[in-house]
């Protein structure tokens, strides 16, 4: 013996021949091999051996491709026949899957949109925002406002910090009156910022040089959309805009429209030197500036957050209840919902992303389970086919493949339908989420491919159980006509129903709790009267200056019950200003400048001391009112007469004259924080007008008329105070609606499954119903008997759903400091709803079966 061919070659060889010839041919070829190696050497023999293998490749390839193709054709044929034979079942199956997939796609689009925020920024991984955290009664409160000198100090102190960008966008001026040659508009998003803004952030200019555009003095960059309002199609470069009637800026750049998924959303960028509030400059005590940093490389910020302590120590002295944190740019959209003070207006929360991903998975799972359930339930119909195939020699694995292929086919049909559904519902979802969502905003072909693969996976997953189940039939039993009792499969199907309804009940409870909490937010007494108050913003300095005459004129009208001015209003964002209360340390406190009518117009209650008064001249300079929370926080026993120090544009030193009862000036997410009211009528940015409830339109007309006589060239903008509060819970409200929508869908899918199962059962038990009727059972009794079998499991599903829902919703409610209770009535009502819906689905079917003439069902016996 002259040695063997290499093992690997033998392996290849054995792959290329029929299994029954394998042994013989391997042996024969080994003989040839040794003969050739004797004659011509081993090397030649080796070459020869490999050549034989390679020459057989084309044939092997052809066979391996051809055989499955032939099989596939048969499977396809059988599948299509099956689909045709049971159209209703197929429809239920596919529509369930389609709705599930469409939901998933929609949620996916939504999540992708949420995650895409600020990703277009080229320096995204190197940009950080500095946020401030204050320790307030044991909890760290975060806000995005920072002192003005911080940016420069950080650049100086840390070599890692390449650039610092300041953005000034004060909380008390949300809109600026901007005018150009008689055209004037209120612009909501005017940023006073450094020239490095355009360098750090990726907002390409269509016209103008990004290097010099914001270098000043008094220059501005305008966005395309804003430019069209003022200049039409003309180029805005070199034009002059007047901000607030006093700041004139020259436009040096035209920026493209801002992507909707940017948390920075400006219409006008103004060079920093044009910033009007100079008292903010070099002031470490007010937190009114947004600071963004560009680092030299994607550091983890922890590396020098510790060194930040030095900066604080240098400028604040030894304080332990105050710190700076670096927030990565990409975290801003999803991780700053709790921030009291923030630039980003369309913030979302990572919790929503998680919750919606979970819902998507749940709904898809529901649809898959449905599919498994119905396919298995129909297995009796396929049993003969399986038996026959087995008799002729089909192997289990082949049958498994066949049924898997069938479910993949259904999944693909569902996928096509789902695409249509998703496209159809996209505008609806866009409205619901208040986002411009589109399926095509990312890489469409890739997405479609991924979705397609997802659909195939769904098909494989939902086909796995039926395939396993069907391929297990024993041909002897099946062909004899004995399907076996199928106890086990029935049990599994019931478990699947249990699972589906657990999820449905869970979602119903979730929706109910969200609904209840939203109602709670809307209906609970806030500590002041938010109805019937009209908020008239005074955006520009002219209307600010004209506030007094506006007030006096309005007061003449008997319809108007009161007019007050305030720098910030409850329900909006409240500025923080550094305060030094007596017997306490310096800390930023929420504060509002108001006039003497504020208490009356808002309907606040004074529990101690007195209101501000016009008659007392010193009030304007040194009178303060605080809320009860502030009294507690400052550790005062008797507040009136306590001294308070504020460092603002001038040093305002004064004393507390009164205490107002706590009221909810912020959302229920936050505890009622200390609040300081200061008297200053020149700072009024809003006029609060209390009107008569039954004469709303007349009152509004009166306000409009008064405004018109005073400011003929500016339009009146107004809103109702209560709508501003509703705005605070907008995201919850929205979430509630979306939740509701998806709950309905989940319930729909579950019912679809139940419906299919019930139809199956009724068909299966037609004879039983007939015999029972003959023996004298009433149709109602039979219907009840049949429904009971399912209702049992639906009821059981509640038991699983309750603890899970309790846990999840309890956690969700933790988001609110002021929250409703998780009453038992929610759980009971949700369960009753689920049971009723299930009963309607099953009951109708069983009742129909019970009503049929027994002669018909027993005819063939």
């Amino acid at each position, binding site marked *: 013996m002259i040695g063997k061919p290499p093992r690997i070659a033998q392996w290849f060889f054995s792959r290329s021949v029929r299994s029954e010839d394998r042994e013989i041919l391997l*042996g024969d070829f080994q003989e040839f091999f040794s003969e050739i190696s004797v004659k011509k050497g081993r090397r030649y023999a080796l070459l020869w051996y490999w050549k034989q293998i390679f020459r057989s490749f084309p044939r092997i390839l052809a066979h391996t491709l051809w055989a499955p193709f*032939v099989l596939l054709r048969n499977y396809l044929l059988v599948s299509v026949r099956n689909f045709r034979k049971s159209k209703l079942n197929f429809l239920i199956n596919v529509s369930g899957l389609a709705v599930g997939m469409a939901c998933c796609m929609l949620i996916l689009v939504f999540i992708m949109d949420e995650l895409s925020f600020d990703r277009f920024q080229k320096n995204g991984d190197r940009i950080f925002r500095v946020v401030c955290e204050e320790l307030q009664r044991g909890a760290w409160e975060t806000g995005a406002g920072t002192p003005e000198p911080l940016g420069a100090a950080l650049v100086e102190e840390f070599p890692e910090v390449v650039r610092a960008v300041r953005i000034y966008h004060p909380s008390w001026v949300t809109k600026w009156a901007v005018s150009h040659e008689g055209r004037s508009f209120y612009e909501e998003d005017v940023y006073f910022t450094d020239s490095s803004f355009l360098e750090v952030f990726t907002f390409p200019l269509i016209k103008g040089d990004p290097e010099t555009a914001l270098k000043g003095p008094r220059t501005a960059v305008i966005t395309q959309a804003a430019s069209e309002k003022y200049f039409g199609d003309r180029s805005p470069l070199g034009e002059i805009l007047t901000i607030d009637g006093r700041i004139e800026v020259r436009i040096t750049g035209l920026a493209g429209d801002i992507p909707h998924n940017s948390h920075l959303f400006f219409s006008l960028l103004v060079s920093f030197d044009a910033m009007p509030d100079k008292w903010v400059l070099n002031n470490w005590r007010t937190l009114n500036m947004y600071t963004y940093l560009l680092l030299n490389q994607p550091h983890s910020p922890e590396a020098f957050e510790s060194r930040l302590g030095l900066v604080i120590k240098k400028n604040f002295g030894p304080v332990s209840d105050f710190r700076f944190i670096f927030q990565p740019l990409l975290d801003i959209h999803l991780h700053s919902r709790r921030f009291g003070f923030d630039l980003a207006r369309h913030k979302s929360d990572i919790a929503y992303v998680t919750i919606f991903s979970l819902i998507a998975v749940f709904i898809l799972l529901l649809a898959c389970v449905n599919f498994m359930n119905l396919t298995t339930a129909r297995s009796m119909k396929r049993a003969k086919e399986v038996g026959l195939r087995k008799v002729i020699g089909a192997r289990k694995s082949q049958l498994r493949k066949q049924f898997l292929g069938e479910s993949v086919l259904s999944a693909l049909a569902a996928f096509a339908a789902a695409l249509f559904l998703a496209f159809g519902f996209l505008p609806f979802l866009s409205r619901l989420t208040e986002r411009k969502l589109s399926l095509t905003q990312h890489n469409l072909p890739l997405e479609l491919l991924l979705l397609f693969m997802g659909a195939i996976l769904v098909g494989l997953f939902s086909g796995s159980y039926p395939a396993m189940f069907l391929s297990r039939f024993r041909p002897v039993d099946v062909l004899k006509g004995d399907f076996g009792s199928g106890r086990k499969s029935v049990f599994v199907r019931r478990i699947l129903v249990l699972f589906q309804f657990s999820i449905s009940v869970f979602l119903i409870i979730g929706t109910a709790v969200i609904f209840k909490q939203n109602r709670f937010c809307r209906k609970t007494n806030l500590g002041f009267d938010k109805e019937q108050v009209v908020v008239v913003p005074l955006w520009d300095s002219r209307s600010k200056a004209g506030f007094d005459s506006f007030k006096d004129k309005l007061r003449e009208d008997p319809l108007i019950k009161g007019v007050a001015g305030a720098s910030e209003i409850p329900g909006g964002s409240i500025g923080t200003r550094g305060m030094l209360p007596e017997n306490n340390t310096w800390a930023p406190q929420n504060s509002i400048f108001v006039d003497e009518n504020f208490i009356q117009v808002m309907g606040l209650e004074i529990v101690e001391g007195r209101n501000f008064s016009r008659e007392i001249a010193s009030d304007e300079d040194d009178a303060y009112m605080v809320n009860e929370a502030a009294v507690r926080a400052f550790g005062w026993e008797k507040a009136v007469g306590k001294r308070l120090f504020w460092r603002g544009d001038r040093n305002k030193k004064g004393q507390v004259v009164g205490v107002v009862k706590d009221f909810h000036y912020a959302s229920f997410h936050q505890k009622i924080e200390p609040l300081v009211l200061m008297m200053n009528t020149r700072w009024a940015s809003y006029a609060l007008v209390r009107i008569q409830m039954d004469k709303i339109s007349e009152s509004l007309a009166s306000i409009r008329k008064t405004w018109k006589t005073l400011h003929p060239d500016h339009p009146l903008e107004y809103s109702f105070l209560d709508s501003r509060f509703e705005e605070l819970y907008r995201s919850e409200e929205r979430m509630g609606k979306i939740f509701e929508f998806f709950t309905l869908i989940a319930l729909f899918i579950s019912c679809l499954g139940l419906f299919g199962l019930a139809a199956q059962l009724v068909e299966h038990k037609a004879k039983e119903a007939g015999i029972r009727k003959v023996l004298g059972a009433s149709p109602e009794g039979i219907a009840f008997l049949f429904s009971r079998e399912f209702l049992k499991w639906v009821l059981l599903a509640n038991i699983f759903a309750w603890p899970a829902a309790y846990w999840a919703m309890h956690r969700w409610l933790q988001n609110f400091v002021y929250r409703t209770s998780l009453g038992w009535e929610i759980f009971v009502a949700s369960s009753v709803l689920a049971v009723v819906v299930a009963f309607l689905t099953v009951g109708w079917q069983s009742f129909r079966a019970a009503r049929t003439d027994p002669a018909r069902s027993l005819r063939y016996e």
Partner: protein
Amino acid sequence: MGNEWEGFFVERELDITVISSYYRKNRGKTMKTLSRTEELVLLSVAYLKENAYGVSVRKHIMDLTEEDWSIGAIYVPLDRLTKWGFLDALKGEPTAERGGRRKRYYRLTKAGWKALCHTRKINRKFWNDIPQPDFEKE
């Protein structure tokens, strides 16, 4: 043919498309004259008696014809003849020089012998009346 073929008889369509294409060429040939190769293969098997298997059959044919015969040229007719029932295939004992693998021995069947005789008869008929050609005039 690969492994996937096992159990393919389940499929009716498969029977028609693949198997028929395999046999179509040889349909109705069973009782007719053997081809030259088939004849040689059958004769070799008959000559080799107990020792007739792929390698020995090929070797025998190559020795007598003094030509190189490809493996396929021997193995395909062997298979075909077995299918037609002219040869029986038997499993032998594993041997060491083949790496412990069995041989497939072939044995001539009665039908095979008949077919051989039939072919010889035809051959004879053709040869019988052929005179020695006269090449000298050319």
